[in-house]
């Protein structure tokens, strides 16, 4: 006459919550979940194209702990701005990546590869075009793992680590976070830290910053960077429909920040000038960024349930750093449940950032650079024309469609389009010079498509 003890209470609790339509009375379920997705990314004007498949595996246990494993593979090709300014005359550059691949092909005695890269070691950019290095090709693999475990008294511990490797860059990171539930689980306080250690080994070696491109003087083959991020946050259930989160994060990055492949045009009154050490080339200098960067960001997110099946997600982030960049990001998504199995999520994001203090579309002789005879000396400490550090605003519009297949599977497809808009103040140049009337910022347009599938068992 013995009914199985605990199982009956649990079974009754679950049956009751199913009947009354609440999911809150159930215990944590044990099980696996696999999520896989592929992202296809494409920039306008034959710039970067990428394809990125991901596999994520998660195991939940009855004590509410879980482990998570993720593997990401990223293959990029296409062209990327090399930082030189667009001019009214043709410009020729030697590509470090191209040269490296040609060297590799010659070492391997691989005729097919030599053929392929043969003419990519150097490239010519037509007048009026933004200089793009076309031989950009890279693959990246990332492995990450995480573990979450509830402890006594409402605490939860999270530990994780990641390893990422690509042709010229390796990154190791580890993170830990602690969260505490209060107020009957209506408030959660959390704090965490992330440590990252990166090594960069650029093709062609580490260029000496603010030295001429044609000479390609280097110091060493690799350099490093360390990043420490700390974050503290609070999540609060405002009422039955509204969940809010507020996070503050601090980031300190030290080490090598220069992009080894990016240069800046040196102009004399708006005209390109030849490199004193190599009269066949124009003068460009390798960029240089400070060795330290400190960022502070404030993030606020809201999730509000609308009706019984829809929801609005609205977030805002403010970021400021000691490179002079301030940014605002506003993000809005609406989850529209069309039926029990189908949903649509239209999405809108608005972003804007100010330029870094040392951002400039090109350098000018006299103010930024002084040339005497064959000696070229930078008068500024730091300079970069990387569009990522310029002033711009950007709008993203997207739409996602999700379809539930039974109780345990879902398929989704998402399409987004991104458009940047130049907000830099124009640098005046002499009328009729090479840089006169040229674009000073490469506005990026990109679209991406995501296909995803997930299954639980």
């Amino acid at each position, binding site marked *: 006459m013995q009914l199985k003890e605990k199982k009956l209470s649990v079974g009754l609790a679950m049956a009751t*919550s199913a009947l009354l339509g*609440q999911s*809150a*009375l159930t215990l944590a379920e044990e099980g696996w979940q696999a*999520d896989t*997705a592929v992202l296809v990314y494409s920039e306008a004007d034959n710039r970067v194209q990428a394809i990125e498949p*991901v596999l994520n595996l998660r195991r939940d246990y009855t004590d509410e702990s879980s482990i998570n494993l*993720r593997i*990401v593979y*990223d293959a990029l090709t296409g062209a990327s701005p090399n930082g030189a300014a667009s001019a009214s005359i043709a410009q020729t550059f030697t590509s470090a990546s191209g040269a490296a691949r040609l060297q590799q092909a010659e070492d391997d005695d691989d005729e097919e590869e030599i053929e392929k890269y043969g003419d990519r070691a150097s490239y010519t950019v037509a007048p009026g075009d933004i200089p793009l290095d076309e031989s950009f090709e890279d693959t*990246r693999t*990332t*492995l990450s793992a*995480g573990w979450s475990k509830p402890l006594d008294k409402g605490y939860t511990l999270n530990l*994780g680590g*990641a390893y990422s490797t690509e042709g010229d*860059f390796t*990154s190791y*990171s580890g*993170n830990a*976070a602690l969260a505490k539930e209060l107020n*009957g*689980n*209506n408030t959660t306080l959390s704090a965490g830290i992330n440590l990252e250690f*990166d090594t*960069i080994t650029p093709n062609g070696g580490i260029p000496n910053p603010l030295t001429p491109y044609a000479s390609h003087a280097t110091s060493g083959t690799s350099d490093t960077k360390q*990043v420490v*991020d700390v*974050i503290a946050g609070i999540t609060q*259930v405002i*009422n*039955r*429909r509204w969940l*809010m989160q*507020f*996070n503050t*994060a601090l980031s300190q990055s030290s080490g090598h920040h220069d992009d080894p492949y990016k240069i800046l045009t040196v102009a004399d009154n708006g005209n390109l000038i030849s490199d004193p050490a190599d009269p066949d080339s124009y003068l460009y200098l390798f960029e240089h960024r400070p060795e330290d960067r400190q960022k502070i*960001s404030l*993030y*606020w*997110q809201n*999730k509000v*349930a609308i009706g019984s*099946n829809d*929801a609005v997600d609205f977030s805002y*982030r403010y970021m400021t750093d000691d490179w002079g*960049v301030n*940014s605002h*990001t506003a993000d809005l998504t609406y*989850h529209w449940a069309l039926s029990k199995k189908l949903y649509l999520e239209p999405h809108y994001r608005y*972003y804007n*950032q100010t330029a870094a203090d040392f951002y400039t579309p090109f350098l000018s002789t006299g103010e930024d650079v002084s040339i005497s005879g064959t000696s070229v000396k930078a008068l500024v400490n730091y300079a970069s024309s990387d569009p*990522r*550090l310029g002033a711009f605003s*950007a709008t993203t519009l997207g739409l996602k469609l999700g379809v539930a297949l039974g109780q345990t599977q879902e398929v*989704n497809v998402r399409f987004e389009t991104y458009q940047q808009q130049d907000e830099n103040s124009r640098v005046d140049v002499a009328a009729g010079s090479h840089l006169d009337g040229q674009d000073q910022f490469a506005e*990026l347009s990109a679209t*991406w498509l*995501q296909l*995803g599938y997930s299954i639980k068992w």
Partner: protein
Amino acid sequence: MRIALPLLLVALVMTSGCSTVKPWQRDLLAKPHMALDSDPLQSSFDDHIYFSKEASSGGRGFGGGGCGCN
């Protein structure tokens, strides 16, 4: 000053009438699409794209590894 407004808003909301939500009132909040990060793979893709094209990053939490793209 620009930070003050969101902070003030949050403080006001939190002190005035946040009802304590009972476990059996969590029906709506427990739905999967109401999770703060309802599709981690999607957030991961987008975070990586924006990290490589813009000067800002993060906010939500920690990413899964650095990349050479910024």
